[in-house]
């Protein structure tokens, strides 16, 4: 894991359950450093947890980039080279899951994001979310 929360940029390899916890904790610290409220920082941490878990669960390994963009928004990019999401439309429906999960992961992240983008094909998946400070 590289990066410095004070420079508003984190880059983290995600390969296991511990990496998910560390990434969300660092993301929360970064959100607080950017001036997010404690509630919104917790929300950001939860979103990071969902995205990082999906990497571990579906791709095995990947990376997260968390930072502050030029517009002052917090962004999270979750990138993997896994098999991709076969049915993207269904994956974004609350309650849909291919893993026996709740199916609330990606829909929840989209719901709390100010912008949300997902690109997935046979070469991998990239999810990008942005959240504005309120």
């Amino acid at each position, binding site marked *: 894991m590289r990066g410095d929360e004070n420079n508003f940029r984190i880059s983290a390899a995600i390969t296991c*359950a*511990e990496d*998910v*916890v560390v990434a*969300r*904790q660092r993301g*929360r610290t970064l959100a607080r450093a950017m001036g997010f409220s*404690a*509630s919104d*920082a*917790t*929300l950001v*941490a*939860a*979103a990071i*947890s*969902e995205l990082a*878990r999906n990497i571990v669960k579906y791709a095995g390994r990947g990376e997260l980039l968390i930072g502050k963009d030029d517009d002052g928004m917090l962004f999270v990019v979750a990138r993997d080279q896994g098999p991709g999401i076969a049915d993207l439309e269904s994956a974004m429906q*609350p309650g849909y899951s291919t893993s026996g*999960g*709740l*199916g*609330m*992961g990606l*829909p*929840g*992240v989209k*719901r*709390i994001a100010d912008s949300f983008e997902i690109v997935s094909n046979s070469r991998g998946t990239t999810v990008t979310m942005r959240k504005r400070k309120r």
Partner: protein
Amino acid sequence: MAVPILKQGDVLIASIQSALTDVDLVALRDALVERVASHRTRGVIVDVTSLDVVDSFASRTLRDLAHMIRLRGARTVIVGIQPDVAFAMVQLGLTLEDIPTALDLEEGLAFLSAGRHAR
């Protein structure tokens, strides 16, 4: 990190001390479901005060835990959900459905003993 499970009378108390990985959460679920029988337990309290985040996996695991324990003949109360965590859960659309919750350990114990008299 293993979560300590204490026994007080016929109640098991699992007091989460730090952030938990998905693996830790599943281990806690399995340990509680197992110990309900061996300790003649009537109630289980899971204290999540120190849990940094409750996301979709954590909420599902807590629900599964409570439902499994109910099938084993005991009741579960989740206590200590922090305000920021509650806020995030609602924003994310996550619920614990019908699982009883209480403010803290003391309220949780009171809830379980009230239920015992009503039985």
